[in-house]
């Protein structure tokens, strides 16, 4: 056998390759492509629950001239992508990073559109006995029980929005995170504070294997629990300290060369429209037995409620979701 010494064979293979590539090119370019491509850079917790796919379908049927693409990344990278001019707007959940994005002049017209709460999950037996506690008390108890070998904590350790929330919670307890990381379980060389350096699902799986506690967003937890991937139970529920607020920010057209400001503003208006806010009310109820994101706009009808106070304390910038100086051709968006 001397391999391809038959010219015919070579030509057959060549012809097949050419047909596939030509077919691919045809398939790629024959589709009507007069649509405008809106690129939204977003966080994994929004993307992986499927809520964005539902939004995409509705938006594209309302505005058929647009095609929406989501790029799912951690909050830090999502902002970086927008700064590089590779996305038109961002949907994220990290108010301090959002503020930086606007202060550097890259982002304008911020709108808060949804919120929910982070929760602490752990083994059903609850070895640290923290069920029902306030989040900060729960963390302090875990730190005490960690050293005696009764509790293990798993951290995302990946600079995501959830990770920065976890770090701010430890900071609020007054404990020094660096020294906690160095602590060993009594009579052993193993730490009780484990850094996963991974996404939420991978971190939940790790916590599940190790019978450990971890901080998670409700949506990812419910999804994995419903799938049977994990047996961890919710031990600490909502509280002011674990508030999680989702906002959208449009890229400043003066800094961003993509020229999709108009489309981005349409999508922003769509997020806070009655249509989307009503959809969020029971999104996820059927699949997970619980809603995933609470709509923010209806809460504004009761300006004195706890939740409005909490969101304003936590996610507003100088008392406004978007101070005047960060607004750009906002029209009636803030009325």
């Amino acid at each position, binding site marked *: *056998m*001397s*391999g*391809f*010494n*038959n010219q*015919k*064979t070579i030509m*057959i*293979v060549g012809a097949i*390759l050419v047909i*596939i*590539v030509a077919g*691919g090119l045809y*398939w*790629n370019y024959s589709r009507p492509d007069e649509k405008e491509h809106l*690129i939204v850079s977003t966080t*994994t917790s929004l993307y*992986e629950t499927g809520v964005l*796919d539902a939004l995409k379908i509705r938006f594209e049927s309302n505005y058929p001239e647009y095609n929406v*693409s*989501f*790029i*799912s990344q951690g909050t830090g990278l999502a902002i970086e992508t927008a700064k*590089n*001019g*590779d996305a038109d707007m961002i949907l994220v959940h990290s108010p301090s990073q959002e503020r930086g994005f606007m202060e550097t002049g890259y982002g304008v017209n911020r709108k808060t559109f949804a919120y929910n709460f982070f929760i602490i999950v752990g083994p059903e037996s609850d070895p640290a006995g923290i069920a029902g506690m306030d989040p900060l008390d729960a963390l302090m108890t875990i730190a005490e029980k960690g050293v005696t070998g009764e509790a293990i904590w798993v951290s995302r350790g990946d600079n995501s929005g959830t990770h920065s929330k976890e770090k701010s919670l430890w900071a609020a307890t007054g404990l020094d995170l660096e020294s906690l990381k160095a602590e060993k379980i009594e009579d052993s060389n193993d730490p009780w504070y484990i850094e996963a350096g991974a*996404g939420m*699902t*991978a971190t*939940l*799986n790790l916590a599940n294997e190790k019978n450990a506690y971890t901080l998670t967003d409700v949506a990812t937890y419910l*999804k*994995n629990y419903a*799938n049977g*991937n994990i047996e961890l139970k919710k031990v600490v529920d909502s509280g002011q300290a674990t508030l999680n607020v989702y906002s959208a920010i449009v890229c400043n057209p003066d800094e961003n*060369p*993509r020229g999709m400001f108009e489309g981005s503003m349409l999508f922003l208006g769509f997020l806070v429209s009655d249509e989307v806010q009503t959809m969020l009310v029971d999104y996820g109820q059927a699949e997970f037995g619980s809603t995933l994101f609470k709509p923010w706009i209806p809460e504004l009808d009761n300006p004195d409620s706890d939740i409005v106070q909490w969101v304003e304390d936590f996610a507003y910038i100088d008392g406004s979701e978007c101070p005047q100086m960060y607004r750009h051709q906002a029209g009636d968006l803030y009325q």
Partner: protein
Amino acid sequence: MGWQTIVAGLAEAFRLIISLDKTVLEITVRSLYTAILATLLASIVGLPLSIFITMKEFPGKRGLKFFFNSMVGIPTVTLGLFLYSLFSRSGPLGTLSLLYTVRGVSVGQAILILPIMVTFIVSAIESKDQELRDLVRTLGASEYETSIAVVREAYSGVSLALVSSFNRAFAELGIATMLGANISGITRVLTTAIALETSKGELGLSFALSFILLFVVLALNYFINWLQGGSS
């Protein structure tokens, strides 16, 4: 978990293939298209370059071969990161609009597999007897005719190089993630879909897509093997 998930994944893979699931079909075709285009792009540069390296003596030849040898093992994320910063709108090649497109992913994969292709072809040609080359030359063949004769003689090695390069492009994740960003319906390919479903905790679907990827690789390699065997 465990075996059950894998078996369920296999069953789901068969179901998706038999029912010609539209999304899965689209992702699989896109994967094939991207990797084939990458292999073609890389061969346009790689074939002449390899022949040049083997047939000519020039200063820096050893250095060039060493460079390609070393680049065979470049991590896909490293190359992806490098190309991302070039292709980004604020980067030097931003005006080409390659970021987040299938073409961009293909270009990245072509750069990834070029060293594999060059290294394999060079060693395939060099393994053929030096005398053969001299013989063809003494028979009065031109430079062009000599290279055709040598490549034909080394054909099984060259086809192995092309198939390996294709397999590498088809199965890589880093560049498809960094340059394509796994956008649904636009740049989602098999490997990025597997990574996404795994991170979502949908292990059954992940396994199903993985098995489809394996089926395609096996089928293609079997086909190439059959062509080689059948032609002699």
